[in-house]
C-alpha cells in the first residue's frame, strides 16, 4: 500500500516505528495533489511551505520524544471556511478574495496543537451553500470516482482530497449534510458531531444554529481520532457544550449485538435510486445478522424537515452574511455613498445561490411574514426534535441512506435549486435536532460510484454511533479506492 492510502492510525504506527517521517507523509500527499488537482480542484490553497515546516517540526519533536498524540505529523486539510492565521480564507466567495485572517479558528489551533500538518484549504460551495461544490466562486471541484461528476457539497473539496489521498483526513462543516453527503458521494467517512461539541469559533458562519464542524476520513477509527482532537468545551463559543463528552474510540470493536437499530421509514421510496436502496437494505440485513435488533421506525416530521431547513438556514445566513459590506475587509465595490458602496460590494461579491438564500432569509424574517415563515419553521424544528426523542425511546441509533442518489453529473442540477436541495433530504433532520450522524461508504453501484450509509444517534450519542459505524464499516468491507488517470507530477 502506498503512503497516501494509509489511514491515520496506520500512518501513526509507521511514524512511531520510524519507518516513515511526517515529511514523507506530507510529500506523498503533496505529490498526490500535484498529480490530481488539475482534474479535481479539491484545494483552493495549498500551503506547501507552511506544511513542510510543520512536518519538519513534527519530525523533530518526535525525535526529541515529544508526541502530540494520534494526529502527530499527519497531513490534513481544512475546508476554506475555517480561519487560518496568515493563510488566505475565502469561504469560496469573491467577497473574501485575498482575505487573510489574523487569527486561527479553534479547530485550526487544536489541530496544530495535536501536531497535525495542515496541507491547505479545500474548495466548497460559496459560504457552504450548496450540495455539489459547483457554487464556488473559484471553480467546481470534481469527483475522483468520475471527473464528470460532482463530489457533493458543500465540503466537496475536503471529500475529494481525502478520497484521492492528497490529505489523510480533512475537516468539513455540516449545516444540512455538507460533510456527510460529499463523504457519501466520494466513498469516504464523514461525520457531524453533536451541536456544541466542536467549537464554531473561527468557522465562517452559514447558519449558526445548525453549523457544526466535523471530520472526513478514510476510516471510522480515523474519524474518531480527528473528532477527539478537535472537540471539547471552548470559552470562545457561547454555544459550546461544557458537560462531559462521549468516548468515540471506546467501543469501535464492540459489534452491534444487543443494540436496537431503527430504519427510518420516511427516508426511502420515491426519489431514491434503486442501487442505493438495495445497498442500504443489504447492510441493514447484515446488521441484523450481526446481532442487532432491527425495527422500522416512522418519523413523520422528516417529510417537512427540508422546508423548515430552507427557511431557518437562509434566515440566519441573511444576518450572518450582513458583515460582508466592503467597509472593513474583503472585496469593496465602488459607490458614492455608504449605501451604494455596500450594495455594490454585495452585488459583486456574492454568487447567485448566496444571493438567493440571503433574499429568501431576509424575506422570511420580514415583518408580517415572520410568523408564517420563520416562526412556523421553528415549530417544525421542535416537532422534529420530539419525533427523534420518541424514536430514541425505543432504538439506540437510526439508519438510512446518506444521500438518495450517488454522485450526479456536474451541471445536472445547477439550474434546478429544488432538485439540488433534495440532495440533503436524509441529512437535514440531524442538523435541525443538533444530533450527531455519520456516513460510512458501503459499496459501489454499477457505475462504480460510492454509496453511503448513514447512522444517526441522539445528542451526545457518539459512543454508540461510532460503535455501529465501525461495525458497518467492517461488514461492508469497502476497500476500493478511486482510480484516476494521473498526470505526471
Amino acid at each position, binding site marked *: 500500500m502506498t503512503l497516501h492510502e494509509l489511514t491515520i492510525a496506520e500512518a501513526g504506527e509507521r511514524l512511531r516505528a520510524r519507518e516513515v517521517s511526517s515529511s514523507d507523509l506530507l510529500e506523498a500527499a503533496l505529490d498526490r495533489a500535484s498529480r490530481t488537482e488539475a482534474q479535481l480542484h479539491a484545494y483552493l490553497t495549498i500551503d506547501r511551505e507552511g506544511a513542510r515546516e510543520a512536518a519538519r517540526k513534527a519530525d523533530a519533536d518526535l525525535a526529541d520524544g515529544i508526541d502530540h498524540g494520534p494526529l502527530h505529523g499527519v497531513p490534513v486539510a481544512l475546508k476554506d471556511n475555517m480561519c487560518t492565521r496568515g493563510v488566505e480564507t475565502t469561504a469560496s466567495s469573491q467577497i473574501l478574495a485575498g482575505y487573510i*485572517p489574523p487569527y486561527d479558528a479553534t479547530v485550526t489551533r487544536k489541530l496544530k496543537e495535536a501536531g497535525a500538518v495542515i496541507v491547505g484549504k479545500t474548495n466548497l460551495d460559496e459560504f457552504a451553500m450548496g450540495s455539489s461544490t459547483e457554487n464556488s466562486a473559484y471553480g467546481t471541484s470534481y469527483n475522483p470516482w468520475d471527473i464528470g461528476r460532482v463530489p457533493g457539497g458543500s465540503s466537496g473539496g475536503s471529500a475529494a482530497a481525502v478520497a484521492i489521498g492528497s490529505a489523510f483526513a480533512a475537516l468539513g462543516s455540516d449545516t444540512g449534510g455538507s460533510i456527510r453527503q460529499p463523504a457519501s458521494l466520494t466513498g469516504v467517512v464523514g461525520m457531524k458531531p453533536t451541536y456544541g461539541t466542536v467549537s464554531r469559533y473561527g468557522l465562517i*458562519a452559514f447558519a449558526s444554529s445548525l453549523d457544526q464542524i466535523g471530520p472526513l476520513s478514510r476510516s471510522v477509527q480515523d474519524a474518531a481520532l480527528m473528532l477527539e482532537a478537535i472537540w471539547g468545551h471552548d470559552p*470562545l463559543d457561547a454555544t459550546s457544550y461544557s458537560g462531559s463528552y462521549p468516548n468515540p474510540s471506546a467501543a469501535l470493536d464492540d459489534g452491534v449485538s444487543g443494540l436496537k437499530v431503527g430504519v427510518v421509514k420516511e427516508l426511502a421510496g420515491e426519489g431514491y435510486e434503486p442501487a442505493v436502496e438495495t445497498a442500504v437494505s443489504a447492510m441493514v440485513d447484515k446488521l441484523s445478522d450481526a446481532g442487532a435488533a432491527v425495527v422500522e421506525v416512522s418519523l413523520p416530521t422528516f417529510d417537512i424537515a427540508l422546508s423548515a431547513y430552507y427557511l431557518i438556514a437562509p434566515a440566519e445566513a441573511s*444576518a450572518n452574511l*450582513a*458583515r460582508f459590506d466592503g467597509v472593513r475587509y474583503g472585496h469593496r465595490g465602488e459607490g458614492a455613498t455608504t*449605501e451604494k458602496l455596500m450594495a455594490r460590494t454585495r452585488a459583486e461579491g456574492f454568487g447567485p445561490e448566496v444571493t438567493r438564500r440571503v433574499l429568501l432569509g431576509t424575506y422570511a*424574517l420580514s415583518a408580517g411574514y415572520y410568523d408564517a415563515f420563520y416562526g412556523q419553521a421553528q415549530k417544525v424544528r421542535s416537532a422534529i426534535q420530539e419525533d427523534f426523542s420518541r424514536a430514541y425511546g425505543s432504538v439506540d441509533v437510526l439508519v438510512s441512506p446518506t444521500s438518495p442518489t450517488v454522485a450526479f453529473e456536474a451541471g445536472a442540477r445547477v439550474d434546478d435549486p429544488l432538485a439540488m436541495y433534495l440532495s440533503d433530504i436524509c441529512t437535514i433532520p440531524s442538523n435541525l435536532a443538533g444530533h450527531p450522524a455519520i456516513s460510512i461508504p458501503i459499496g459501489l453501484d454499477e457505475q462504480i460510484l460510492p454509496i453511503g450509509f448513514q447512522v444517526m444517534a441522539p445528542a451526545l450519542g457518539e459512543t454508540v454511533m461510532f460503535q455501529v459505524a465501525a461495525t458497518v464499516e467492517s461488514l461492508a468491507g469497502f476497500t476500493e479506492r478511486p482510480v484516476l488517470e494521473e498526470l505526471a507530477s
Partner: protein
Amino acid sequence: MTWESVIGIEVHIELSTSSKMFCGCAVEFGAEPNTNICPVCLGLPGALPVPNRKAIEWIMAIGLALNCEVSERSVFHRKNYFYADLPKGYQISQFDIPVCHDGYLDVTVDGETRRIEIERAHMEEDTGKSTHVGDGGRIHAAESTLLDFNRSGVPLVEVVSRPDIRSAAEARAYAQDLRAVVAELGASDVRLEEGSVRFDANVSIRPEGAEGLGTKVEVKNMNSFRSLERAVEYEIERQISVVEAGGELTQETRHWDEEAGVTHSMRIKEGSSDYRYFTEPDLAPMVMSASWVDEVRVGLPELPAERKARYSNEGLDSDLAGVLSSSPVEVRDIFEAATAAGADHRRAANWLVGEVTAWLRRTETDPAKLPLGGEQLAELVEIVDEGVVSSSAAKVVLEGVLQGEGSPREVAEARDLVQISDMSAIEEIVAKVLADNPEAVDSYAAGEEKVVGFLVGQVMTASRGKADPKLVSELLRKKLSS
C-alpha cells in the same frame, strides 16, 4: 384648547465594565482610535460573541434599583440593519424578553411627586463611532467618514419609560434622577458630554383629558439635561402650533439642534424600518436564577431616594436632605462619621453642603482627597456650640483644618481664634475703648444709640475678633448707661 404633553424617554447607559459586552477588549474613553478592537468587535468572519457576566449583573442592579422585575430567562436578539459603524450588520440587542421589566422611578418637580413607570431595561452592544469629514461634518455632504471601533461592543443598557411624563421639566427630572441612580450604583461613568449616558424623547400631545395617544415624534441628539428639557419644551410647542394651525403631525424622528434651539426632521419615518429581529443563535438564553438576583440585590448600595428619606428622618429639611443626598460619597461619608461622633445632623450637613463644598469647588479638589474627618467636623460643630470660637471664626478654623494644620481646637489655638471667655479681660478692653473714644460716649449720652455698633467694632478689633460680640454689646450698654 388645552393640550397635554405625553412623553416617554429612552435612556442609553454605557456600562463601565473593564471589558466589552461580547469580547475581552478594554472599555476606555479617549483611547487612540481603533486600538481596543479584536476579531469579535470588528465583526471579522468566524468571530463569536461571549457575554460579559459583569454587564448582566449591572443591568440587573440597574433594574432592581429602578424597582423592576428581573426576568428568570432572557434572550438576545439580532437587530438587523446596515450601517458603516455596525460591524456585523446587526446589533446584538433584546426584543421580547428583556432582562428587566415593569419598574418605576418617583420624580419630584416643584414639590409634586409623580411615579414614572419603566417598561423595560434591556442589554445591548454599542456601535462604533462615525466621524463625517468635510462640509461641517454633516452626513449628507460629508466627503469621507472615519470609523472608530473602540466603542463597538461596549455594553449598553437601554431603559425605556412608559409615556408617563407630562412636562419638559419632568422629563429633565426623570433623566437626572435616573442618572443619579446609575451613578450611585457605579454602573457607568454617567458622563453626558462623553456620551456614556444618552437620551431620546418620544413626544406627543393630546387634548387635556383625552385617553388615546397623539402622533409620536422621536427627538434625538440631546447631550445635556438642559438640552433635553429645551428640546422637549420646543417639540411640545411645535406640535401644538402645527395642530392649532390645522396641520397634521408626522410620525418621525427629529434632530435637536442645540445652537438654533429647534428640532428638525431627519426624514426617517418611524415604523418604516424593519429590523427583522430574531433570536441570536450564537448565544444561549440568559438564566437569572433567584439566588443570583438576590446576590445582586444584597449588593445594592443605598439609593439617592432612600438616602434622602433617611436624612429627612434624621431632622434635615427637604432641601438640605436633597442637596446632601446628591453630594459626593466622600462628603456623605464625613456626614455619617461626624453624626456618629455626636455632631448635630443639621449643623454637620450645613457645614458640608456650605463651606466644605465651596472649598472643594474653589480649590478644585477631588472629593476623594478631602482632608477632613468626621471626628474633626464633629469637633468643629462642638467648639461653636461651646462658644470656644465664634461662627465667623469657625470658618477660618475649617480653612486651617483643610490646610492640614491640625484638629479644630488646635487650629483655633494656633491661629489665636479662641473667644475670650474671661469677663475681666473683656471689661479691660471695653474700659480702654471707652477711654479712647470720649466723643462716642458723649454721642451716646446725647441719645445716639447706634454708636454702640461702632464701639462694639472697636472692641472686636482690639480683641482681634476673639471677644463674643453679644457679650461686648451688653457690657458696653451697661457701662454707657451707668
